[in-house]
């Protein structure tokens, strides 16, 4: 089982804690779980620390999940890092747009730990 470095990006500290807890509940093997409050902070962290997966909210101040994904994919040093979006946004068109932009996975809230684990297993097959 490979341990991974995971970056959680959400403007709510409580939501970041919640996602962190679900990661632990899912039994995902992690080396380090770091946090960022928006896309700009996330990009700074990605440059500074090794990250194997980004779990991001869609709507955040300064820089949301879609722009974060676009910027990661535009960077030759970051584009290998998969991005998963977790959001309550109900718009199917927007979710299609996310998938077309290169997001590796999308999970609509509310979700169960099982569905979260299933998605992460697709993105990081060796994580559990």
């Amino acid at each position: 089982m490979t341990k991974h470095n995971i970056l959680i990006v959400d403007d709510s500290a409580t939501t970041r804690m919640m996602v962190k807890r679900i990661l632990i509940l899912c039994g995902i093997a992690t080396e380090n779980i770091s946090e960022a409050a928006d896309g700009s902070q996330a990009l700074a962290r990605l440059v500074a620390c090794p990250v194997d997966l980004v779990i991001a909210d869609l709507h955040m101040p300064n820089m949301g999940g879609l722009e974060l994904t676009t910027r990661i994919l535009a960077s030759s040093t970051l584009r290998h890092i998969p991005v998963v979006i977790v959001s309550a946004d109900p718009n199917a068109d927007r979710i299609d747009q996310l998938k077309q932009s290169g997001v590796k996975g999308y999970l609509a809230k509310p979700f169960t730990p099982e569905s979260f684990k299933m998605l992460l297993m697709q993105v990081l097959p060796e994580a559990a």
Partner: protein
Amino acid sequence: MLDTTSITAADALTESLETMAFISALPPEDALAPAGLAFFTRIEFRGASDGALELLCSREFGHLLAANLLGCAPDDPDLAQRAGDALKELINITCGTFLRNTGATARALVEMSVPVQSAFDLADWDAFVAANATILDAEGHKLALRLVEIK
């Protein structure tokens, strides 16, 4: 039409509570106001139709929700600080679920606002409930949810 949609909104709240926080919500035995201080949490949506969801609950319920979402003990000192955020997350998820369930996003792109929150005097519980609110009992805590049309 509003009453039917209010039921759907309550269904979305129930689904969100059960899925994310493992909290069951059922119709209450009575509509009496809960005691103590309360949170009023509201989120607006704009699209094919414009409206808002408003949730009223006690601070104790906010603590229970935060404890379940975060896996904390019920007496964790951080819960008072986390309860408000947990309720904002709940109404955000409930609104997204409600809009998906009603097919609102099939007709037009729907934008949800950032949830806002304020303290609420439970002396006004009856007036809030009388305006098309649905009351639920979530493990001994009363919640009132209403859908408000924005014209």
